[in-house]
């Protein structure tokens, strides 16, 4: 589904990614871990098409297409979804209107009929249950005045509505208490299938107790320095990132 080859990127002239190689197949869940400043969020941003990041080298192939050539909205319509670390507050735009527009533009792109108000509401009610989000929240301006947990649940609600092929969760666990974390993880797990893939970007192992990955990659100084199964996350949790750092320095 996704093939990243030798990807390098910079922001404001500062090199952040230094040759990332990663392959993700349908049905897989990959966790990207690493210390602060290792480039995890940058990788997520580059995949979603955030414009301030400049790709300096490498390629990203997604479902046979050159991903880097696509605009952020084209990527989303092609099935890429980024759950933001810091979801943006947009006064005056309600989540409902925003989602209706998004769902219909995505459906149009996929050659499906657009949803009328009634069927949209039906779909919404079904997906709301997944993350235990209340409709009164969705009637309000997008994320405005939402708590940290509400914002993250809203992200997963949007993911459920848009049914992406490749979802990238950027530090979705940050700022969540254990109950909110469970709700969010539970929502994500219900969306897992053999047809889609998920990349979980996280600093802590905690989230991976609930969203169990098939692969764990450790990012350090803009490079994947270690890959393994889910047990690698546990090892990291036990030994800390210094273990990786010293291993890299020795090598």
């Amino acid at each position: 589904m996704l093939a990243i080859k030798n990807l390098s990127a910079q922001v404001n002239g500062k090199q952040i990614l230094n040759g990332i190689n990663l392959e993700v197949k349908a049905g897989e869940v990959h966790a990207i871990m690493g210390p602060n400043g290792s480039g995890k969020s940058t990788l997520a941003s580059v995949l979603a098409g955030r414009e301030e990041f400049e790709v300096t080298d490498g390629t990203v192939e997604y479902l046979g297409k050159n991903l880097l050539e696509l605009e952020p909205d084209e990527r989303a319509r092609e099935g890429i979804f980024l759950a933001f670390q810091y979801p943006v507050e947009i006064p005056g735009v309600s989540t409902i209107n925003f989602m209706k527009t998004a769902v219909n533009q995505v459906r149009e792109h996929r050659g499906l009929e657009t949803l009328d108000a009634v069927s949209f509401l039906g779909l919404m009610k079904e997906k709301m249950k997944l993350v235990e989000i209340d409709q009164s929240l969705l009637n309000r301006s997008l994320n405005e005045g939402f708590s940290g947990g509400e914002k993250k649940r809203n992200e997963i609600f949007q993911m459920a509505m848009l049914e992406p092929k490749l979802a990238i969760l950027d530090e979705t666990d940050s700022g969540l208490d254990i109950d909110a974390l469970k709700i969010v993880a539970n929502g994500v797990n219900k969306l897992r299938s053999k047809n889609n893939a998920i990349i979980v970007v996280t600093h802590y192992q905690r989230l991976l107790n609930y969203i169990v990955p098939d692969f764990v990659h450790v990012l350090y100084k803009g490079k994947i320095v270690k890959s393994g199964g889910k047990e690698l996350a546990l090892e990291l949790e036990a030994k800390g990132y210094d273990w990786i750092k010293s291993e890299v320095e020795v090598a």
Partner: protein
Amino acid sequence: MTNASVHSELLDLLTEAVLVQNELRTEAMQVFRKLGLPGNKNEEYKHTPITRALEKGLQLRASFVTGGALPNEDQWKISGLNAYHAVLLNGSLLPEKSFLPSQVTAMPMSKASANLQHVKDNMGTYADFRNDAFAAWNTAAWSDGVYLEIPEAVKLDKPIVIYYLHDSQAGQVKSVTRNLVISGRNSEAAIIEKWCTTGSNTVISNTLSEIVLHESARLNHVVLQSDTDAHIQYLFNQFWQHSGSFLNSHVITLDGGFIRNNTRVALDGENCESHLYGLYLLHKNIIADNHTVVDHRKPNSYSNELYKGILEDQAKGVFNGKIFVRPDAQKTNAFQSNRNILLSDKATINTKPQLEIWADDVKCSHGCTTGQLDEEALFYLRSRGINKDTARAMMLYAFASELLDTVNDAELKNYLDALVSERLHKNF
């Protein structure tokens, strides 16, 4: 021709055929001649070159045309709005085209000021004409307008729209109109003002209203500017609030040539409430200036002002908001905010809040922001599959809708919503 002689010819042209038949007009004419038209050194017109616009737009050697033809209703009427209306054509009220509620006293200003002593007495006592050339010109040279009195406790079922129609097909038009509105105690009314020009010759309009709200009167007032670029407009609305009165003022500017709005509120009583809202969507070469004054003269009143603008192309906007809190006006709450979005490198906004507070126990705040569309928010919308144009329109519409939501009349709100949506290419 030298600048000075152009200037003096312009003054002559503007005062052509004006009959100065009473003391007030005589004084105002002297003030006008003495002040002259404001140049760019005049602090109140620093970024608003209205004199240059007049020099460019008017033909100094040609007279103004009078009369004209009434265009079709669908060109100027607010569609879908159930309302009373007064119609003026090139500055004269057309009573036979007007439809006003039977509970109010309504007559052409030309008649009211000649026949009603209290109209004569009130004229010029609220709106200061001694420090502004255009206010002086209006006071000296107005030809007609609307006198409206809403009697005590009368609550009007529908808004009253004043339509100022201009026909400049046969030549340039000068339209100097004067209104006096008296909202009686405990009365409730809504007044809407709208301008419409047909013809490509320049129209200079100068509309001045003195609007008095007596004890516990409630008034919704809406200025709707959506005219052609042939129109150079000076507008001065002076509200005067007595105790317990409530004012909602909207100034909505969507199109035109050159616009200067003075919106001034005097809170001359206790427990008054004033809301001043402004929305300007400026494009092409339009210049639009909103000067506002909120003058707290007595204690325990509340005012809130919010003006928002979106500017594109080479449009120029000006916002100047003055708040005065006089020594007597303790326990005043006065708030002001001006927010702008610039969509092009060539669009400009000059914004200036001015607070003068002489009382010590008050709550006042002001703030202004100017920026581009929030890139992070734009990226967020696009990351959900929404294309760039739609995402942009959604955000602009959200910015404008905060103001549209404050319009009480549902029919008017729908009408405005349609105009704003069209301008912002909203198709979501």
